[in-house]
């Protein structure tokens, strides 16, 4: 920065250097000079409506708001002069006249900006003797509780909704003191980021519904942690009372999640207290499940695994920590098996995928790119904070294009190429051809205007990005799609990035939780292993093909599952269930999509007899007399895991062959089995409030009007999906956003577990 663009101002006698044009309130904040405020938020536009930050500026006759006053050279500012204080106190009185004195029963009490500021700027005697305003509360959804009597009309929520959530879900109606905050005509708040409303509301007008009346702020202890649901690894604070997670708040980290977190990260903790938590080890005796002690259970596991030996297959959750994955692969390798994998939602293992796929750039760099092509992904729902960064990029002027079999409801302008699963490769090949790439498929591709348009945007951009996500990695022709994406990137000068499917997809590869020459997640189920070790997975929900997985486990001689939950499918599959610590109950490390290692400590003790999985695995190692299981702490494990990862570099180079045979041929109807936002993992699936949101959809046959007509189906009918002889009957929903030639039948939802792979040919029969 040049000296020219800096100005010198004086605030309360203190000389400060500031960037010309900076807002006074920011400059004061940086210097630690406290100016009271309510409506100002550094991530939102300035509205200057609360009038709490009025300060005195020399030669200005009236007090002016620090949030809307840009600094000018030589400016002399007084934040605590008689003029400033009189203005601030006047505002405080106005804010309090209609504010209820219900702090003792208000969830915001103790952490309320109005309460705090009123100590400094309020009066002990009220001059307002009239009745206070009454504003009825409104139902705005299962996550956010309202009490509009407490609203001070700062409009942070309105600006958040419009500017960050991008949905304009909140607004104000009425004038003067009858102005009310609300949703537009009795709607619920459906944004995947809506929980942030709770944080930005400076008073108790918008509070957490699940946390309502559960604890007082001063009873809570705070631990730092990392959210366990997606490749962002949002930084969070876990608030605990009496060894129970009471709530989750964001921890600001500009490089990762800024000051926001997704609703999934905020409210999933409720799933910890689900009735089907597994709280003691259990073994199956003569077909019946009985509780047992750790010693018995572990001995049985050690005996079982010893017998399975090299025939063991390990299927590990990509949401497991680095420590857990490291020890699990080490344990299974000590048995002589290389059948280890975490890619439980992948079906195309023909090779050539990058050695260590990652986002390709820092999460905070996304908003600066000029063009993005998103292939087989819906970051808005799959990784909401990445979705927010993409939205920022779009608002900054980037052109964003999507290639998906589903048209998504986006909160910014983007071009969406809708392409049936079987045609995605053709469309991508056409884009590749249009950017000037050559090769198999590409040369035969038919370039249309929409492909040309995407190509132009990528080529003209100063910095462009090609991103592949969850749907792409689950696609039966993933290797072809990634090879084509690499060609597009190469020819257009774009970076290529892979959004890992889960919280630790990148970490899992770094600690080699995948086979070198053994069986992969697909082949372990196609050619059933003798025995299985499952870590944090549910057979009916967490696999690309749940029917195949459940069948394989049933055939196996011995299955041990480390799990935080009991479920019918686990009980059907396993012989031993070992209760592992859930989210917040264990220390650990995640490596997020951009390769950042983030460690965290446990916030609460595991429930019942549950133990951190790394400890369980370490003891199993001891019982199996394996080498290298003498760690005393998770730090020891982490250190070894890190050492083992040394020399493994993040690497997005794709070597897959463009000319491979296409597995999806486009005849008939193809299933699109995406995983909805609140079905991604065992914890989320058990979080009651999230399951009541609009995004928590149920299993249905979602089909566009044309395909529905062809199949003789109408909205509201029930129909049976038939996939490789597997059946599931569910309601029909007409959805014009589903590509022709395909039908959306989500995976991981109740009712979908009897079907086959996430993608594949299906037929429909009216039930």
């Amino acid at each position, binding site marked *: 920065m040049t000296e020219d663009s800096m100005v010198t101002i004086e605030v309360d006698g203190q000389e400060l250097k500031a960037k010309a044009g900076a807002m006074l309130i920011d400059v004061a904040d940086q210097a630690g000079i406290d100016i009271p405020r309510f409506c100002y938020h550094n991530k939102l536009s*300035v*509205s*200057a*409506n*609360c*009038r*709490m930050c*009025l300060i005195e500026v020399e030669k200005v*006759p*009236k*007090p002016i*708001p620090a949030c*809307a006053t840009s600094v000018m050279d030589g400016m002399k500012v007084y934040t605590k002069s008689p003029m400033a204080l*009189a*203005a601030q106190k*006047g*505002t405080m*009185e*106005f*804010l309090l*006249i*209609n504010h209820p004195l219900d702090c003792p029963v208000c969830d915001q009490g103790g952490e309320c900006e109005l309460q705090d500021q009123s100590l400094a700027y309020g009066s002990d005697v009220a*001059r*307002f003797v*009239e009745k206070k305003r009454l504003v009825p509360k409104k139902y705005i959804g299962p996550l956010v509780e309202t009490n509009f009597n407490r609203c*001070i*009309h700062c409009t942070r929520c309105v600006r958040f909704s419009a500017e960050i959530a991008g949905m304009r879900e909140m*607004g*104000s109606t*009425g*004038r*003067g*003191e*009858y*102005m009310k905050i609300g949703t537009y005509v009795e709607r619920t708040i459906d944004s995947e980021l809506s929980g942030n409303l709770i944080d930005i509301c400076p008073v108790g007008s918008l509070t957490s519904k699940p946390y309502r009346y559960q604890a007082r702020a001063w009873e809570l202890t705070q631990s730092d942690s990392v959210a366990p649901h997606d490749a962002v690894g949002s930084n969070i604070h876990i608030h605990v009372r009496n060894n129970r997670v009471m709530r989750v708040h964001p921890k600001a980290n500009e490089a990762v999640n800024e000051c926001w977190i997704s609703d999934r990260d905020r409210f999933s903790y409720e799933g910890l207290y689900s009735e089907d938590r597994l709280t003691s080890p259990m073994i199956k005796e003569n077909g019946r499940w009985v509780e047992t002690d750790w010693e018995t259970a572990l001995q049985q596991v050690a005996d079982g695994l010893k017998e399975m030996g090299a025939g063991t297959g390990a299927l590990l959750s990509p949401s497991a920590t680095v420590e857990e994955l490291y020890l699990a692969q080490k344990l299974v390798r000590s048995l002589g098996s290389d059948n280890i994998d975490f890619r439980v939602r992948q079906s195309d293992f023909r090779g050539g995928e990058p050695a260590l796929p990652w986002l390709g750039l820092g999460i905070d760099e996304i908003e600066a790119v000029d063009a993005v092509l998103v292939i087989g992904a819906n970051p808005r729902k799959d990784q909401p904070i990445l979705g927010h960064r993409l939205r920022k990029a779009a608002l900054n002027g980037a052109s964003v294009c999507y290639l998906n079999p589903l048209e998504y409801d986006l909160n910014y302008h983007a071009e969406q190429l809708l392409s049936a699963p079987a045609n995605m490769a053709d469309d991508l090949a056409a884009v590749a051809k249009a950017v000037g790439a050559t090769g198999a498929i590409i040369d035969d591709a038919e370039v249309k205007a929409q492909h040309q348009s995407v190509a132009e945007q990528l080529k003209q951009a100063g910095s462009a990005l090609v991103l592949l996500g969850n749907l792409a990695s689950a696609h039966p022709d993933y290797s072809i799609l990634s090879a084509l994406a690499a060609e597009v990137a190469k020819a257009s000068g774009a970076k290529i990035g892979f959004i890992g499917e889960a919280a630790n997809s990148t970490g899992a590869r770094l600690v080699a939780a995948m086979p070198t020459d053994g069986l992969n997640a697909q082949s372990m189920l196609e050619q059933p292993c003798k025995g299985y070790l499952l870590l944090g997975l549910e057979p009916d929900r967490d696999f690309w093909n749940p029917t195949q997985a459940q069948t394989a486990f049933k055939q196996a001689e011995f299955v041990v599952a480390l799990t935080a939950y009991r479920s019918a499918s686990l009980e059907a599959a396993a012989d031993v269930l070992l209760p592992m610590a859930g989210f917040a109950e264990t220390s650990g490390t995640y490596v997020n999509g951009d390769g950042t290692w983030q460690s965290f400590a446990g916030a609460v003790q595991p429930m019942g007899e549950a133990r951190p999985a790394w400890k369980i695995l370490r003891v199993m190692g001891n019982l199996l007399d394996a080498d290298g299981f003498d760690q005393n702490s998770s730090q020891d494990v982490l250190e070894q895991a890190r050492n083992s990862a040394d020399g493994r570099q993040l690497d997005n180079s794709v070597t897959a062959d463009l000319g491979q045979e296409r597995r999806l041929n486009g005849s008939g109807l193809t299933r699109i089995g995406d995983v909805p936002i609140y079905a991604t993992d065992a914890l989320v699936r058990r979080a009651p409030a999230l399951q009541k949101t609009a995004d928590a959809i149920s299993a249905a046959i979602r089909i566009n009007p044309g395909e529905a007509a062809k199949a003789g189906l109408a909205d509201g009918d029930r129909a049976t999906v038939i996939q490789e002889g597997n059946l599931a009957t569910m309601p029909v929903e007409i959805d014009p956003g589903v590509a022709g030639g395909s039908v959306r039948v989500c995976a991981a939802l109740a009712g979908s577990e009897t079907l086959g792979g996430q993608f594949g040919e299906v037929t429909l029969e009216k039930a």
Partner: protein
Amino acid sequence: MANEVCFRNMDLDQPWLLEQYKSRGGYEVLTKILTEKMTQDEVIELVKESGLRGRGGAGFPAGLKWSFINRNSEASRYVVCNSDEGEPGTFKDRDILRYNPHQLIEGMIICGFAIDAAAGYNYIRGEFWEPYLRFEAALEEARAAGLLGEDILGSGFNYDVHVHLGAGAYVCGEESALLESIEGKKGQPRFKPPFPAHYGLYGGPTVINNTETLSSVPVLLKNGGDWFKGLGVENSAGTKLFAVSGAVKNPGVFEVPMGIPFSELLELAGGMKDGKKLKAVIPGGCSAPVIPADEIMELNMDYDSIAKAGSMLGSGAVVVIDDSVCMVKLLERMSYFYHEESCGQCTPCREGTGWLYRIVSRIERGEGRQEDLDLLTSVGKNIAGRTVCALGDAAVMPVNGMLKHFRDEFQYHIDNKKCLADS
């Protein structure tokens, strides 16, 4: 000297028709500007020289306002006419729309030419249905005559004027709330700076002037700045429309030279009604502090004289109050208005206007407390000068004016729980 500018055609049979407007030299100034290739700077300079000040209330020099516009801005420029006329007591712009719409249109085109605007908008008060229809009819006539639209009078200048009908919010008369309203948003004032001249309608540099101001432009350009200045007095050039209402025999709108003694204006309005005695006058619309009879009878009606008396010329709405009126009751009604019309955006106005009303109302009902008079002053102090727009100040000024000049009536209400005016 009356009816020289905005009402100059009032004697005609149907002055709102294009043909009749033209019979008095209408659109000649525009034609001259466009055909004789006057430069934009020359036009602005002439408006500056005339000393024309904004007739909406604030009295800002019009030519200066026009000169702030960056004609090279990337964003399109706009002319906005403020015909919202919401200030209680004001009804002068209504008569311009009814009787002289073409002069306003001509003024708006000249302004559009001067700042190279993409379009003009006239924001008409929602209740003005008949004036709205008449203005729309005039626009149609002008379009048909090639005075609006593409290539006006063959000059290459493209410009049209659109009407936006308000929906009854006082605050939309505030220029930035008006812009928000035209943009289809809730009518709430914007924080300033930036001012409309830099960031106005749809983000473009915008001139926003009152109806009377823009309507004055063709005449003052025709007759010259000196002529216009000569109509008025020092620092208050031209004539002014005064909307006289209240306890007068002939209420109505009068175009008279700036600086006319109030006593003469009162005579024009037929003097006091029913032989009542003059008690006080609100000289510039509801927001202007009241001036007692003896003071106002000595005052001239121009910006400086009224300001010296502690009030303001405002929009020229002269409300004449006779001695049967209870000032507490009157203030209660006025305070209710501001309470009702506050947009609710910023704290002092949202919370304070209702509080002021409730205190005054309490006093009026005979439930006032001795400390209420100081409380009114104190609450007013906490509103004035601390709000996003001037509505807060507008709510406070009448309270202060009343307490300054008629405190005894308020005291009487508190002491005797009844009205001094009745007794």
